[in-house]
């Protein structure tokens, strides 16, 4: 297995999403190639760092403003003003 092949599959390797025989090959390669080892280590740490990102908190008043917006929309809908959205996801 070449370094190029290792690099192409490294993301799936990290996700344990490869056939076992390929995974074993990758493991062997990374064990003896310092460049690919660095690729593997830094990618692993990158993913680990983001797993520990903080969840952004909603600012004060944000929830109340949302509820108010929805209240206005409900009133509009009840007065027959609002158009139903048939494609809300926009896909």
């Amino acid at each position, binding site marked *: 297995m070449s370094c190029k092949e290792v690099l192409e599959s490294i993301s799936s390797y990290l996700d344990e999403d490869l056939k076992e025989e390929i995974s074993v090959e990758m493991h062997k390669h990374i064990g003896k190639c310092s460049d690919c080892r660095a690729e593997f280590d830094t990618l692993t740490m990158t993913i680990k760092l983001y797993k520990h990102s903080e969840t952004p908190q909603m600012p004060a008043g944000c929830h109340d*403003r949302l509820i108010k917006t929805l209240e206005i929309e409900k009133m509009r809908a009840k007065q027959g003003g609002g158009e139903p959205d048939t494609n809300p996801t*926009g896909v």
Partner: protein
Amino acid sequence: MAQELKALPDETLVLRAQEDDDRAFGELVGRYETKVYSLAMKMLRNPEDAEDVLQETFLRAYRGLKSFRGNSTFSTWIYRITANSALMKLRKKQLPTVSIEDADEREAPINIVDWAPGPMEQLLTLETRQAMADAIEALPAEFKQVFVLRDVEGHSNADVAEILDLSVAAVKSRLHRARLKVRNHLTRFFNDTRGQKAMGARS
């Protein structure tokens, strides 16, 4: 009553909300508002924009509720609306994003120095968090969606595919490219900060 709503699964709340039970819809808002805000904030990195997306998402959900057929779960549906609203926002603001095609143009080759050994806690400084957010911001919008959903919010490849209406193969391919770009960004950051520290130590 509120207690009773809390115990109900999403599907039941959706059915009730579709029959104009506003309290049921309110319960769904309560369940998902922080998640929606968090996803928007991670993609847009600006509290006002994230709040716009939050409002837009629930307005669109409210208006479109009757067209929701339960082909996916409510959570997938609401994340899809969020991810698309955030994408529209990114495009409208014309933030300095790169197209997917340009993104794979060869970056200046960087020497991958292994900055990873050692405990994660040591790496996770305030400056690192800043660099991590910068790295996401530098991604093309379509990569940003996939990376944030998968590696920041922790959804599976299959869920991300469903949320973004992509094939799993497309998700994996974008994820791979996004991860390499983000890692390269962090590598440059660690190379720079360590270089500066070394210089400081010498003087």
